[in-house]
């Protein structure tokens, strides 16, 4: 369908560094995010491996203070700089306009500004290492974060700036979905990935400002001692937790919703079958986004929050489980009577469903207030959120990157090594984090750098598992680099998928489509 020569795609549209640093093309901005988010993921991953090394035995490789800095940077980098911006900034930026048949996002210059704001925030956050390093945990709970030194103010302002970038991206995506859909593409014909990015954008716009004010108040608390969250000056540290989690629970849905969007795309493509229950999945994304603002108190069952508020939050949290169950079963029934091909992206999608189910059911256990009193702040919680974050979002990022790699770079990747990376990651993940459920039920608390001898054997298994995950992600990195250098030329639609991005060349034109496509039917028309 596309006739133009190869010299016209977005990679060759401009030459030299300046053409990248001043690009307004959503695809290039997506790649620029990708490079740095991958680098920060590497940084966070190294911190994770060091943490697991420390926890290999009862002995102390790092002092308490050093371990606390490691655990803080692992948390802060992974949350604020990898997994919250991750899918929306890379795959969302790249494929949202392509999926709805638009030439670019609604505000291209704002999109570039978001990237620069993201880079400023990330560099500031990493520079706090020079000021002695932050040791407050990624949650910055007061009054500990007020008393400690080591660049907390700089880190907190970095989080504010990263929040600005998140708001601007969310704002951009909402306007794009509302205003730039191709003719004929009504709201119930947009792909489910766009629905998930849209719900995520709503969360980004409505939740991040409260984090902004909270983090600003914490900075003022440390600099001028304003006393909002400092019990010595009449403040209430539990109010900080309310404000913090009012953002941070929607933030965990900012992390998982785009991943669910990718899984919908993968399962339909590799089962060659239309999605089962399009409306149910689309509206469950919105439902999760909506309910996520009512549930933050389940992080504070034992923090001094009143019993009645705790019970209320526990009941409402159960509502979030329902749309998640709908999605999982709808994906399952998408495969029914399909033609399933276990391509590596599909392996990651199946890995997602496997691990996210475990993450989901353990989430229900933690939502029950009676159980959370025991499990709170133990390794049960650590295992739960790693199952949904690494098992969920990171598996989806890996699957999504592999699925869209031929479209992004016009080059195929080695299927064999991609499957090897999957095996390492999937097995390594279970070996690392399943024992932590048991450690948690045995009562081992979080953020401990030494522990009682009875926890040693399970921790050793967990550390070995972390090496497997590390290898798996390095193999995946190798697959991508090898593909860039030696990958075979990819066709327009190697996976025979039906969504719009596969109708244009790979890599796509600078302006995405030869002429704006007219949409006459739904996104997954595998008849």
């Amino acid at each position, binding site marked *: 369908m596309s006739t133009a020569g190869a010299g016209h795609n977005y990679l060759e549209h401009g030459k030299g560094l300046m053409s990248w640093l001043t690009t307004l093309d959503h695809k290039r901005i997506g790649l620029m995010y990708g490079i740095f988010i991958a680098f920060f993921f590497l940084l966070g991953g190294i911190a994770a491996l060091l943490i697991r090394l420390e926890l290999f035995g009862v002995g102390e490789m790092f002092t308490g203070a050093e371990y606390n800095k490691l655990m803080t940077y692992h948390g802060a980098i992974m949350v604020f700089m990898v997994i919250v911006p991750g899918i929306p900034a890379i795959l969302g930026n790249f494929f949202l306009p392509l999926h709805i048949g638009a030439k670019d996002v609604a505000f291209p210059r704002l999109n570039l500004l978001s990237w620069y704001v993201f880079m400023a925030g990330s560099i500031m956050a990493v520079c706090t290492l020079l000021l002695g390093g932050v040791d407050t945990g990624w949650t910055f709970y007061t009054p500990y974060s007020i008393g400690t030194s080591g660049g907390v103010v700089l880190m907190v302002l970095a989080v504010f700036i990263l929040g600005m970038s998140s708001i601007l991206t969310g704002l951009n995506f909402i306007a794009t979905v*509302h*205003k730039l859909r191709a*003719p004929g593409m009504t709201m119930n014909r947009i792909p489910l990935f766009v629905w998930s990015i849209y719900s995520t954008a709503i969360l980004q716009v*409505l*939740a991040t400002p*409260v984090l902004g004010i909270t983090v600003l108040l914490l900075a003022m608390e440390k600099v001028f001692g304003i006393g909002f969250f400092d019990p010595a000056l009449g403040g209430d540290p*539990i*109010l900080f937790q*309310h*404000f913090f989690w*009012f953002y941070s629970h929607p933030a965990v849905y900012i992390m998982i919703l785009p991943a669910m969007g990718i899984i919908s795309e993968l399962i339909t493509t590799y089962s060659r079958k239309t999605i089962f229950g399009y409306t149910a999945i689309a509206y469950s994304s919105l439902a999760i986004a909506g309910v996520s*603002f*009512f549930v*933050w*108190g389940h992080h504070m069952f034992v923090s*001094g*929050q*009143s*019993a*009645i*508020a705790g019970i*209320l*939050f526990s009941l409402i949290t159960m509502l979030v489980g329902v749309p998640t169950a709908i999605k999982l079963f709808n994906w399952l029934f998408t495969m029914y009577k399909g033609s399933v091909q276990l391509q590596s992206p599909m392996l990651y999608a199946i890995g997602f469903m496997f691990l996210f189910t475990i993450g989901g059911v353990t989430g229900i256990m933690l939502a029950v207030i009676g159980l959370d009193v025991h499990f709170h702040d133990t390794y049960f919680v650590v295992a739960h959120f790693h199952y949904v974050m690494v098992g969920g979002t990171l598996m989806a990022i890996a699957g999504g990157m592999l699925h869209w790699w031929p479209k992004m770079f016009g080059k195929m990747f080695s299927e064999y090594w991609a499957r090897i990376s999957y095996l390492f990651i999937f097995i390594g993940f279970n070996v690392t984090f399943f024992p932590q459920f048991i450690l948690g039920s045995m009562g081992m608390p979080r953020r401990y750098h030494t522990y009682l001898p009875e926890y040693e054997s399970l921790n050793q298994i967990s550390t070995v598992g972390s090496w497997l995950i590390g290898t798996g992600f390095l193999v995946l990195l190798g697959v991508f680099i090898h593909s860039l250098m030696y990958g075979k030329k990819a066709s327009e639609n190697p996976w025979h998928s039906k969504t719009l991005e596969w109708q244009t060349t790979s890599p796509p034109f600078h302006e995405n489509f030869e002429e704006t496509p007219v949409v006459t039917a739904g996104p997954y028309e595998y008849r």
Partner: protein
Amino acid sequence: MSEHHDVYHVTPFKTYMVVFLSLLVLTVLTVWVATVDFGAANAFIAFGIATVKAMLVLLYFMHLKYEVTTNRVIMASGFFFLALLFIFVLIDIVTRVPVESTL
């Protein structure tokens, strides 16, 4: 795709002046109300008048009255989630049972 009624809406000069004067009157009213002691209701009355003034600014000065519903929903959701945060934090603080030391 977008409705073609008055996208580029121009509000007449007179409407602006009427709205402006009523805003000033309401400000004077707020100040006067503060001097009269209605007890606890003072705070709510002050907040009520401020909301009326805010609605005036929103509807007329910011043309929300002539806007598409999407923009109205966007603005309303800002206030809605704010109220949500306030209500749930209030539920927690009001139902806390203080514990006293008996030493």
